[in-house]
């Protein structure tokens, strides 16, 4: 048996790498070129879906159909009710799932897909609003839709069009852009994501009870109101959370001192280290109740742009503290899932 020549192997590898780079370049360029083409019709499509009383019915065939299924999944997981309608099944009765309140989202690179053209008159008769994402806005589907969003690319990466490549990537990216725009319109929050993703990794993290991950006992940075700032800094330094809680009587939380408070204190007081912490602390800090979930804590942190959150018990007593890193599994305490 002839052994493969090493230099031939090397040449072969170089060729494979070059080809792979070409494909990635073409696909990247395909998406990049769409940036300038996203215009008013895309914004109208987002508004139309946002205001719709019904669901988003996504349809397409072949690779566009596969992209369509992914768009459906993303829409559903981000708070927009959505269904996939196979055009062939549609012709055999599934069109019954479409109601006039729904929005139909058609995906077709050519805009001339026979199976989609066949269901178009029925969709129009129903009075459903139709959005078409296509690479050919002057096509039958493009012309006959209420809104047509361009998703064309300059070049495909695969010969003969046997496997649409850059065009489907561009369509997928545009579908994601649609979903993210809707998330922003709907003010979709981590807690909503948690409700939609009980099984996902992020979903699982978000539904963990706060008490499972909070820092307790000696790992909570805390000082008394009369403690000097110099000692408070030492406490902050030891517990490495970038802040320390300030306690009043009966283990009640009265304030928090953060790096920001220290900076502001430096500007205000010449001899800051000798001042009591109550002079610089932020009073009545944001807290989270111990009965909540990680999703609730994350939401409070995001809304208030803070990274630590004291955990309070039913009687208002301090039970623990959580840091943003703990929520995301990057801190001292990690999820074991």
């Amino acid at each position, binding site marked *: 048996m002839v052994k493969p020549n090493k230099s031939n192997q090397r040449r072969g590898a170089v060729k494979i790498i070059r080809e792979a780079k*070409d494909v990635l*370049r*073409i696909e990247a*360029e395909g998406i*990049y*070129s769409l940036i*300038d*083409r996203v215009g008013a019709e895309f914004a109208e499509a987002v508004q139309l879906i946002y205001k719709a009383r019904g669901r988003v019915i996504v349809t397409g*065939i*072949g690779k566009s159909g596969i992209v369509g299924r992914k768009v459906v999944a993303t829409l559903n997981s981000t708070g927009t009710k959505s269904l996939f309608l196979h055009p*062939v099944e549609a012709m055999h009765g599934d069109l019954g799932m479409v109601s006039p309140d729904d929005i139909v989202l058609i995906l*077709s*690179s*050519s805009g*001339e*897909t*026979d*199976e989609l053209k066949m269901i178009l008159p029925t969709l129009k008769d129903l009075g459903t609003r139709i959005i078409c994402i296509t*690479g*050919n806005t002057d096509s039958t589907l493009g012309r006959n839709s209420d809104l047509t969003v361009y998703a*064309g*690319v*300059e*070049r*495909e*990466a*695969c*010969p*003969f*069009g*046997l496997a*649409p490549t850059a*065009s489907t990537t561009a369509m997928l990216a545009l579908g994601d852009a649609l979903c993210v725009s809707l998330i922003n319109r709907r003010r979709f929050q981590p807690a909503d994501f948690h409700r939609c993703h009980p099984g996902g990794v992020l979903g699982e993290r978000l539904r963990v009870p706060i008490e499972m991950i909070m820092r307790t006992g000696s790992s909570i940075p805390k000082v008394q109101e009369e403690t000097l700032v110099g000692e408070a800094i030492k406490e902050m330094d030891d517990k490495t959370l970038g802040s320390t809680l300030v306690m009043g009587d009966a283990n009640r939380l009265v304030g928090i001192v953060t790096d920001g408070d220290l900076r502001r204190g430096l500007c205000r007081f010449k001899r800051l280290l000798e001042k009591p912490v109550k002079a610089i602390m932020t009073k009545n800090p944001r807290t989270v109740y111990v009965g909540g979930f990680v999703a609730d804590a994350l939401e409070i942190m995001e809304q208030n742009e803070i990274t630590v959150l004291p955990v309070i018990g039913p009687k208002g007593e301090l039970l623990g503290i959580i840091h943003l890193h703990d929520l995301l599994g990057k801190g001292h305490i990690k999820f074991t899932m």
Partner: protein
Amino acid sequence: MSTTVTPRGLICSLALVPNPKNRSVYRGLESLIARLQPAVAGLFLDPMFWCPDANHCGPASSSLLEEAIDLAPKDLPLWVRITGTSAEQTTHICHQLENVCRRLKYRGPLAWVDTPLFYHSNRGLPEYYQALLADTEFNLIIDNNPQLIRKIGDTTKRKNIRTAVLKKLVQEPRLVALVHRGDLRRGINYQRAVRSRSDFLVYDGEESNFLKRPSASGVISIGANLLPHEWRTITLASLNLEDSHLGKAGSFRHLWEAGQRVRTLQKHYKQGPASIIPAVLAAWGLISEKSKGLIPEEERATERILELLPEP
């Protein structure tokens, strides 16, 4: 309904043999157009392709254009080469051909095609084309053809249109398309440069590039003279102009087979398409005059193609 001069799809560069006696200048034009017109989106009259010596090859002649206008369907886009050996000559040719159109009262989809770097540098190109287009009512397509420039043999000459120059060129709305021959990376850069014009198309000037990584606008094909329907099938599929091949049993196979046929023939004629393709067409009886002076390799390639395709 007005027809665009730059349709997406297959543009066939006609393979003809110039007649030295200059009578009925290009024999076989009628039969060739009749054969090609159901399959192609446009025809390209490009003597630079069928003339073996680029340096002594002129642009399309008045009589050729006259014949083509007469024979081609009125809504079929015609691309006509105007490249001369200097800016003055090119402008003169353009005027001459324009006069033919005026005389024939031709208002159909026609565009001039020019390879500017054949006689001009990158410097001053936008101004030059502004002046050229001021005197013609037809649109212009530019051809970036580094291989042709290489044939001139001037090592100091730039082979490609500079991307920055192209950016300026596309500000002229009557410059409607670019034919790019050459490497993919440059092609992508050109596409980036013309992004400000959504109506501006970039065609692949090299068949092999298109077969490997098809551009979205179309291809200038020589091989379509031999296999027009196969080329049409592949072009439409590559450009996603039709989804009809999807979901139909056996049609992927049909597409693949068409691709293999096209590639196989291309392998044989690529060493001298200007000689080999007309020789095959002549053997089929589609054009009356055979190319002269075929070298032995070209003779062999012609024979091999005729073995594979004994008849059209």
